């Protein structure tokens, strides 16, 4: 068997693929966080819970409404995004004029409520969501086995990330978002309905988290706490990429997934901490993050 540094190639590629899949989720989630932070300046602590709600909604939809995977992928982000819109309109907006740390506290509280409610109803042990039939099985690439569903997750996450990036960088609406991020008061003086833009942006960020949740349901156990463990890593990714940088969030998400995968191969003990080590080094050398603008 071919080896590299004494590691079988199959194992290496397998871990890299796992890392890339994790990275795709980091990218989707940190993208949503970055978009929300950019305009609202609120660190959305409910992001993990909203991702979890996405996965749960898919699971419950399948069980009780026979909502199939593809419909769930479309409908669940809309429903959870609408919940996000309500949260912004009726809760976050009330505290937008005071210190943004209160937004962090509020969303943290919401996350606890969502998680606690679901723990009460369904317990902490996870359930599994079946892989949709079309995406069952896999390909033998010769050097490794690639499950079809994982390939799909990677492609879907990348397409959504790149589409979002394109929308923000190249469209009129995206220009509003970028300008609103810089100077919302002036945007409003130009006649742009900034409060509406803020509401829709939060809804969109939340919908992205729910989309990631549906994508994740067939891979990871669906449990009320699935989001909170992930969220800490995603925060680190956003800090490494640079707060509020869209492309930074996407690329850093993928890169951190890969680094984590590589660490699992060469020094498994550090796999859970390597991202935080990277964060420390980046903060020391470039406090605004890899893609952040110099303050």
């Amino acid at each position, binding site marked *: 068997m071919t080896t590299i540094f004494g590691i079988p190639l199959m194992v290496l590629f397998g871990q890299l693929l796992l890392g890339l899949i994790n990275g795709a989720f980091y990218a989707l989630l940190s993208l949503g966080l970055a978009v929300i932070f950019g305009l609202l300046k609120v660190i959305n602590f409910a992001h993990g819970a909203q991702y979890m709600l996405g996965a749960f909604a898919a699971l419950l939809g399948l069980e009780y409404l026979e909502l199939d995977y593809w419909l769930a992928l479309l409908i669940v982000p809309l429903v959870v995004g609408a919940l996000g819109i309500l949260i912004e309109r009726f809760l976050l907006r009330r505290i937008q004029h005071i210190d943004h740390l209160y937004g962090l506290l509020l969303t943290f509280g919401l996350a606890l409520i969502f998680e606690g409610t679901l723990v009460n109803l369904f317990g902490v042990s996870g359930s599994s969501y079946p892989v949709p039939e079309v995406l069952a099985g896999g390909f033998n690439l010769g050097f490794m086995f690639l499950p079809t569903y994982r390939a799909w997750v990677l492609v879907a996450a990348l397409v959504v990330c790149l589409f979002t990036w394109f929308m923000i960088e190249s469209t009129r609406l995206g220009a509003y978002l970028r*300008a609103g991020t810089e100077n919302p008061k002036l945007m409003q003086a*130009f006649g742009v309905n*900034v409060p509406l833009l803020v509401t829709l942006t939060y809804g969109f960020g939340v919908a992205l988290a729910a989309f990631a949740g549906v994508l994740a349901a067939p891979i990871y156990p669906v449990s009320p706490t699935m989001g909170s463990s992930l969220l800490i890593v995603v925060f680190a990714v956003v800090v490494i990429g640079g707060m509020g940088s869209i492309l930074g969030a996407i690329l850093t998400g993928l890169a951190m997934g890969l680094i984590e995968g590589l660490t699992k191969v060469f020094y498994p003990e550090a796999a859970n901490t390597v991202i935080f080590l990277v964060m420390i080094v980046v903060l020391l050398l470039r406090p605004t993050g890899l893609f952040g603008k110099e303050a």
Partner: protein
Amino acid sequence: MTTTLERSRAASAPKDAPEQLRVTDLHAFYGESHILHGVDFEVRKGELVTLLGRNGAGRTTTLRAIMNMVDRRSGSIVIDGRETLNTPPHHIARLGVGYCPEERGIFASLNVEENLLLPPTVRSGGMSLDDIYAMFPNLYERRHSPGTRLSGGEQQMLAMARILRTGADLLLLDEITEGLAPVIVQTLGEVLIKLKTRGMTVVLVEQNFRFAAPLADRHYVMEHGRIIEEISAAELPGRRERLHAVLGV
């Protein structure tokens, strides 16, 4: 230069033109600070009116209060016959108001053309992108550069140009000549004359009295958050001494 400017006043608004803006007993606050203490003035359609005064007299705050960008305000602000004291900020622009802030407010994450196209159209009859590039050729040459890479003068042109596209016919311009080279100031003066001949109404907050004097139909002098004096262009020559004393120039 002066002769062109003097001639421009021939195109002045008639005295009986309808009011475009009337501000009555305007008070404005930032937090607990009470900045404006009852400002009264009016501007007729097609007029160019200046707000003169020392730093801190409340001129910038007056413009920001009209745009509903202060924390709290009271009194009355009628734009085009409509009371706007309870109008949300994003609806003010739609009454045909274009605002050019003192700090210019060019967006760094947008290139020049994106900055130009950013403010939504509020009325028909705005200048086309081609018209604007014809008026500001520099902006055309640099249309793909990030907005904040431009020189100070070019940024000022951009800040003015982007509100001309929207169809706004009441322009609130805050210290547009501040810190700019004389040649750019002269260009801005020519631009203002063109805007006047297009029938635009302009409220100009200005420190540079020599720039403003030949352009304006009337001047309002502010001190301590109030208008203390109104001077028409015709009265200006006889009042220069007094004005210099008030402005400290």
